[in-house]
């Protein structure tokens, strides 16, 4: 019994260690750096430095009170503070200025009208973020479906023994910049991203541009973390396959 009890303690300790490491991973100290190859300061909703955070939070609370009371000045300050973030996120989803502008208007009007429904359980900026993501996603879904995209063709294929079907797999990672110009590369990426299903596109934007964790993406889109991971992986495999084909290699 004593042995079992001590084992339980050990397990609890290990669990604690795991949670701790998870915390560190999410807080940009850990491995995230390796995947998030490029960090653009001030690009997303997320980048507020720790020291400013508290002050910003207090200001935000005053603003929310103002907006809830229908104070226009508060609303204007709020608009100025978040305009570029909402706009650039909307632009990433929709790919053009006109649609992004529509989304910005729709989002801020919603904020103005629905401020009273904000419960304060999350941060106001998180609430705004969720509204932006879902408004942009809804617009994306309204768009006419393009020709069917054969995603399967770009997925990796394996033999029955589990090894790569096409061997050798070519490492073109160093050649990309030699073979295509930067502009060509960006065009390929743009076209491929546009071929993704709206929800997959959303996952890619939130992960690779907004640098959100899978859990945050899951919350914003109402998916499970597993579903987010699966969609992200599949979208990346598709993008990778498309790039490979453009460079003259097998996508698989």
């Amino acid at each position, binding site marked *: 019994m004593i042995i*079992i009890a001590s*084992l*339980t303690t050990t*397990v609890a300790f*290990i669990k604690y260690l795991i949670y701790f490491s998870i915390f560190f*991973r999410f807080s940009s100290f*850990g*491995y*995230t750096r*390796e*995947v998030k*190859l*490029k960090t*653009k300061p001030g*690009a997303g909703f997320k980048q507020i430095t720790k020291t400013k955070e508290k002050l910003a939070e207090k200001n935000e609370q005053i603003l929310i009170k103002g907006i809830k009371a229908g104070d*226009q000045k508060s*609303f*204007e300050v709020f*608009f*100025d503070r978040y*305009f*570029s973030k909402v*706009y*650039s996120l909307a*632009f*990433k989803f929709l790919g053009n*200025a006109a649609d992004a502008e529509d989304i910005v*208007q729709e989002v*801020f*009007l919603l904020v*103005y009208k629905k401020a009273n429904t904000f419960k304060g359980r999350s941060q106001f900026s998180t609430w705004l973020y969720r509204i932006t993501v879902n408004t942009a996603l809804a617009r994306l879904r309204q768009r006419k479906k393009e020709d069917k995209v054969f995603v399967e063709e770009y997925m990796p294929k*394996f033999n029955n*023994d*589990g*090894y*790569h079907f096409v061997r*050798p*797999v*070519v*490492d*073109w*990672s160093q050649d*990309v910049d030699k073979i295509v110009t*930067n502009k060509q*590369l*960006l065009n390929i*990426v743009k076209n491929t*991203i546009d071929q993704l299903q709206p929800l997959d596109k959303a996952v*890619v934007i939130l992960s*690779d*541009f907004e640098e959100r964790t*899978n859990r945050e993406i899951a919350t914003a889109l109402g998916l499970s973390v597993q579903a987010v*991971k699966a969609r992200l*992986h599949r979208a*990346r*495999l598709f*993008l*990778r396959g498309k*790039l*490979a084909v453009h460079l003259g290699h097998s996508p698989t």
Partner: protein
Amino acid sequence: MVKKMTSKRSRSKKVETCKQATSLIMDYLTGEMNSMTKRAFEEHLSFCPDCIAFLRTYKKTIQAVQSFFDTIPLKKKGFQQTLKRKLKKKIN
């Protein structure tokens, strides 16, 4: 009870084939992988140039996506003000 704990602790995944390795790439890149699985993943890579190539091109793909997002320009101040005026009219 002990048995239950053991099964919980030994959640490490096998990495015997390229198919398994490929399905774990994302967890490997984000570090969402226990040390046993990580070791197995890296061991597979140590003798599989195909999976090394696949991993490198996968990472390059993420980079390409990020550099694409970076090219999207921000709007100028004037545009922001115009939009704000439009919004104010809608509110009133």
